[in-house]
């Protein structure tokens, strides 16, 4: 198996994916969760259709929105949540009292209306959460870079540990994170996935996960470099990838099994969270095998060409 030989193909495929993702990121607007944008999300149960006493020619959603407007003065968006008996209404922030007033007035048409969950967040909190999230992602990347540079400090020539750390983090940032953001833009646009605290959590968790396989490969590369010396660097890189590819795929596969179970069975609340983790771990393994090590090699070659020129 010669993975390095086909480097151009892997990098080509990934570049196309990255560009497409960037296009998605900038064309589609993300739905922001209320923990980011501020506002109210109210989940209610409306009961069985036979109990409705709605005015003629009025659907449940029209009725919910009209009474909501009358009681709270806010325009709401109503969405079915899971079953037809459950709805989520979203609007600008309202108070607990306004919500209670609406519930009692809307019971005229929906006698069994009951509240399941009510969240209300003032917009001031949102901007702070976004700032913290971005900061956390940057800090996590730097911390991983530093740790890898430290962990691989004994790596022999011709390469060095900073290049190990940097290529691992580039594979992460330029590849995994951007493509995941792109896919999520599609999920957000077409399926209503929200960018919220859970999504940021998934993103940060992936930063830790995605380097796992890269570390396994680099660890073997270090071992092989010590054993064989610096000659045939390209061959050594390829061998290290091939020798560790099964374990990279298998460790991801067990995670995929668990995440698949959680995505399919775990319920609506965590659906997009586990789905983004699922997409992320697959991306992470792909980039560990096909991006990180080839990048390391390209870097090495560039350094050597420079030496020859000098």
């Amino acid at each position, binding site marked *: 198996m010669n993975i390095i030989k086909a480097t151009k193909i892997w990098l080509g495929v990934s570049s196309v994916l990255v560009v497409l993702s960037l296009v998605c990121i900038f064309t589609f607007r993300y739905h922001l969760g209320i923990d980011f944008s501020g506002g109210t999300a109210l989940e209610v149960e409306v009961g069985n259709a036979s109990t409705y006493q709605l005015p003629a020619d009025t659907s449940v959603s029209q009725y919910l929105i009209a009474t909501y407007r009358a009681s709270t003065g806010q325009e709401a968006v109503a969405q079915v949540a899971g079953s037809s008996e459950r709805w989520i209404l979203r609007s600008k922030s309202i108070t607990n009292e306004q919500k209670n007033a609406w519930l009692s007035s809307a019971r005229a048409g929906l006698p069994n209306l009951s509240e399941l969950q*009510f969240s209300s967040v003032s917009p001031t909190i949102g901007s702070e959460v976004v700032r913290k999230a971005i900061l956390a992602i940057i800090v996590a990347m730097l911390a*991983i870079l530093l740790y890898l540079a430290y962990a691989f400090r004994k790596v022999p020539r011709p390469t060095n540990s900073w290049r190990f750390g940097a290529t691992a983090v580039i594979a992460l940032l330029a590849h995994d994170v951007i493509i995941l953001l792109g896919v999520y833009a599609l999920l957000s646009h077409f399926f209503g996935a929200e960018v919220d605290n859970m999504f940021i959590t998934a993103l*940060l*968790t992936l930063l830790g996960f995605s380097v796992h396989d890269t570390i396994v490969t680099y660890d073997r590369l270090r071992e092989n470099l010590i054993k064989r010396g610096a000659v045939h660097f390209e061959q050594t890189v390829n061998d290290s990838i091939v020798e560790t590819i*099964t374990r990279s795929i298998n460790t991801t596969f067990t995670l995929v099994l668990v*995440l698949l179970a959680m995505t399919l069975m775990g*319920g609506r609340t*965590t659906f997009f969270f586990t789905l983004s983790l699922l997409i992320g771990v697959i991306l992470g393994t792909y980039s560990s095998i096909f991006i990180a090590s080839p990048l390391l090699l390209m870097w090495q070659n560039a350094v050597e060409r420079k030496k020859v020129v000098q």
Partner: protein
Amino acid sequence: MFGRITTISLIVIALLGAAIVDFPAVAKFVGLKQDFKIREGLDLQGGTQLVYQTDLSKVAAADQANAAQGVVEVIDRRVNALGVTEPSIQKTRDNSRVIVELPGIKNIDEAIKLIGETAQLEFREGIEGKSLKDGKFNSENYDDWQDVGLTGAHFSKAEVQFKQGQTAVVSEPEISIQFDAEGRKIFADVTGRNVNKPLAIFLDKKLLSAPNVNEKIDSESAVITGNFDLKSAKTLAIQLNAGALPVPITLVSQNNIGATLGTEAVQKSVVAGILGLLLVMLFMWIYYRLPGFLASLALVFYAMLTIAIFIAVPVTLTLAGIAGFILSIGMAIDANILIFERMKEELRSGAPLISAIDTGFNRAWSSIRDSNFSSLITAMILYYFGSGLIRGFAVTLGIGILVSMFTALTVTHTILRGVAGTSLKNKLGWWAGGVKG
């Protein structure tokens, strides 16, 4: 790491401990009366979370931590009067917020009213020409009255009572307050110099009442009237007893979760978790044969131990926390895969079984350590930057990673070595594919 006997004893003790904490029946069997229960977060058991912004603009930087802590204590005393079981009131590290969690509460409006008001009660005397005109009441404006240094800090007790001497069936509630020694002295001085003039009582800078002083009052108690209904009088009495908030607060986020949603979510997560665990065990068994089977036993042990740690710490388990734990099951097996792959390589290159096992563990260690460390780093960053929900996830993931390193390196290793000492050692095909025994 340790001697073999020590390691085995350690594992047995951990297993017993975990069984006692995890399963009530086992705890009962060994004669423990204590009921070990996992602590459920609001999203699982239902309840309300209120986030308040503290207004620290008028507080010197050095005193901000104290002011925020004061807010926490006052809210704690007020909430206690509500009779909520196990409320949690915490301030954020930067003192800008106070997070109040009230599990299972029904009357949220009442709680919000009770918690949110500053409840700064002040007695103020009149200024001729401003609040007073010819010694008569002239202004409701807070700034037209003058501070006398008598505030809630001088009250030792507040109570609701009913106006005496009323013949009406519904008598008007009023609040009786008791002064401490200093309060009594100030009150006597103030009433002494304001005879035949009104004395104003303000609550949060709003005029409650301004009764006329008939004579100097040297008494340890006073009565406040002010158009109270029974509910508002009770609320104010609780607030006065709990003390005024040191700084004003505003409600910035509220989350009420019904218990139904939580129960459903827990059921679904548990089903998903068990299914995930079974799938991983099945895969390990099929792909890695005997070692895979032994590793899946260690995985069950891992799950038991982790849950026991959650109960013992205790970790408040949220939905995100459950997700973190289930995820860590998938990761816990990673270490085993790294080790077994290495073992296979050794076996195929003709190494004897025991030495292949040991080499597998030793050589895989650096990869396991480095990859788990990078996950621990992100878990720590999540914990540091995150709010309650994210922290729950970070904690369970972090504990999961640490426990998984322990089980992979000691438990699986010990079991493997143990089994390799039996007659099974001759069936090399059971240990790895492509190796003839």
